[in-house]
């Protein structure tokens, strides 16, 4: 929990990883390039005081993770969202067993989400059933730009992905986190295209689709889809640290999200270990839309509380003390929210 100015915030870090990108695990040059790219994000967007050395960045381990998140970082609960990346790393990038083991040992603090790749066909479906039997997860993280043999990506709207969603439905896996952000593949289309989320969300209305990185840099496409599909949510991974390096840009992102999808469907995350949560939580609580940006209403404390934890807690059934709960906003299920507040007209 984080407390500031007499207000208490229940914090859920909805997108974290326990990765191993050390040279002995790198399978090829792409494994090095991948972690180097993450490290550039880290260096580019973090305050100097929060920057790690390259060696620290390659691997953290469970002990360090627990410290960064829970001892230092105010986090009440965190959710693993693993990227496997088996073409880049011998034992995968996200460390399944280590993360699952850590979550199993700390069930009140950590939730383990799994991942699947629909290109593994029937064998992958069997694996998903077996993994779910053993680990009992409620959610999965899908990295649609993952390489797999000759293929460099897939879409949520592919027939095989639908087979997997049908299986998720049967198993009770309700939360589908999708990486839609800075990306690499597929090649033949706009690689950031989020329209496949639209198809899947329309056909699987009983599943939640959480678009990580809020579709950046396709914010407008994401917002338009999320406005029409009540089961589409936005994850703030990678968007959060812009509070430091580009606060006016961050203000516009959060302003747009509140306008288009509303305060109940936005989730905070540090994207650990890309960034640590401590400074992000502190800054978000202090953050405000600049006054000259009259096209957006000011952020309320209730909105910040929902984004920082209550929204993800609700989706995952994470217990929240009664005094920290906030009721849902009285907003429409679809269409823009609070147009009368978030509008140039309102500022005149």
């Amino acid at each position, binding site marked *: 929990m984080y407390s500031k100015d007499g207000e208490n915030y229940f914090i859920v870090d909805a997108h974290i990883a326990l990765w191993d990108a050390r040279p002995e695990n790198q399978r090829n040059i792409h494994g090095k390039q991948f972690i180097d790219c993450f490290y550039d994000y880290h260096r580019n967007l973090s305050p100097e005081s929060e920057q790690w050395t390259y060696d620290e960045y390659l691997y953290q381990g469970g002990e360090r993770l627990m410290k960064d998140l829970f001892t230092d970082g105010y986090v009440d609960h965190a959710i693993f969202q693993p990227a496997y990346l088996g073409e880049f790393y011998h034992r995968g990038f996200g460390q399944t067993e280590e993360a699952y083991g850590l979550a199993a040992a700390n069930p009140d603090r950590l939730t383990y989400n799994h991942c699947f790749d629909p290109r593994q066909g029937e064998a992958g479906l069997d694996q998903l059933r077996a993994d779910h039997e053993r680990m009992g997860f409620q959610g999965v993280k899908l990295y649609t730009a993952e390489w797999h043999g000759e293929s460099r990506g897939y879409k949520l709207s592919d027939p095989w992905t639908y087979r997997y969603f049908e299986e998720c439905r049967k198993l009770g896996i309700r939360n589908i986190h999708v990486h839609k952000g800075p*990306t690499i593949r597929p*090649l033949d289309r706009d690689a950031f295209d989020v329209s496949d989320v639209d198809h899947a969300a329309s056909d699987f209305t009983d599943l939640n689709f959480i678009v990580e990185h809020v579709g950046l840099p396709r914010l407008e496409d994401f917002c338009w889809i999320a406005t029409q599909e009540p089961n589409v949510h936005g994850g703030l991974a990678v968007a959060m640290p812009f509070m430091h390096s580009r*606060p006016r840009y961050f203000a516009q*992102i959060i302003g747009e999200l509140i*306008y288009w999808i509303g305060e109940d469907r936005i989730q905070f995350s540090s994207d650990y270990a890309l960034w640590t949560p401590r400074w992000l939580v502190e800054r978000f609580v202090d953050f405000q839309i600049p006054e000259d940006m009259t096209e957006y209403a000011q952020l309320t404390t209730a909105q910040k509380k929902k984004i920082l934890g209550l929204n993800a807690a609700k989706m995952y059934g994470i217990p929240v003390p009664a005094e920290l709960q906030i009721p849902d906003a009285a907003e429409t299920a679809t269409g823009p929210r609070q147009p009368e507040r978030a509008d*140039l007209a309102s500022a005149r």
Partner: protein
Amino acid sequence: MTTAPLEAPLDAHPDAHLGAEPPAGVVTDDVVRRSLHTVLDPELDEPITELGFVRSVRVARGAVDAGATVEVHLRLPTSFCSPNFAYLMASDSKDAISAIPGVGTVIVELDDHHDSGLINAGLAADAGYRGTFRHEAEDSLDELRGTFRRKAHTAAMERCLTGLLRADRDLPEEELGRVRLGDLPAGREKDALLRRRSALGLPGDDGAPVLVDAEGRTYPEEAVPLALRRARSTRISIDGNAHFCRGLLRTRYEGSGTDQAFRPEGSEPADQHGLLNLTVKGPHS
């Protein structure tokens, strides 16, 4: 390339900062850079020269009949920048340089990208997009180009119309559907909009309505505020991504910031501190 001095009107003469015109037929570094200035990052809607994506230019004079050999190296903000964008900028660069009179051989290489080998081999063989990426490239790049051309227009339109709203606080949003090109104040934002309209084949006369989609269709009055809001989110995406990519390039390649021209769209107060040698003036001041 050095940073564009902002004493020159922004955007008005994009080549003004390059050297004086050399004698016809002589291929110099400046001539090559001038041609590269026409190559845009489709997503960011900016010349690759201003983004700092041009790592080096080398001109070797060959025999008079053979023409000069030009070797250009490009670099991008991450190894994992989308390969279709990377290919597009690299092949556009090769086309632009090949069109210079007096140029014989053109070598364009993309450095440090996860598909450098594939792309450089494809460019060397003039294999085209499909020939380069084979089974992964099912469509041509025209659709992708078209998408970003439309987005660039949307963003330019929103900048102009939001400018009007901020200048006249009594102007209702619904009225923006009636604004004509002739109502927009002259300046770089209007110039930018006219260029983007021209790329889409939209009319540029004073009587043409400003708030139109990529096909030139206007919006009914009640749909105008929502159309503006959607356009705004497009503009935010482009501005934000442009600054993210520029920042990542500077992080990845030390010193590359000096190769980047100042981008006023979406800039933050802090941006100007990093560029102390620049005096930012208003449009056409």
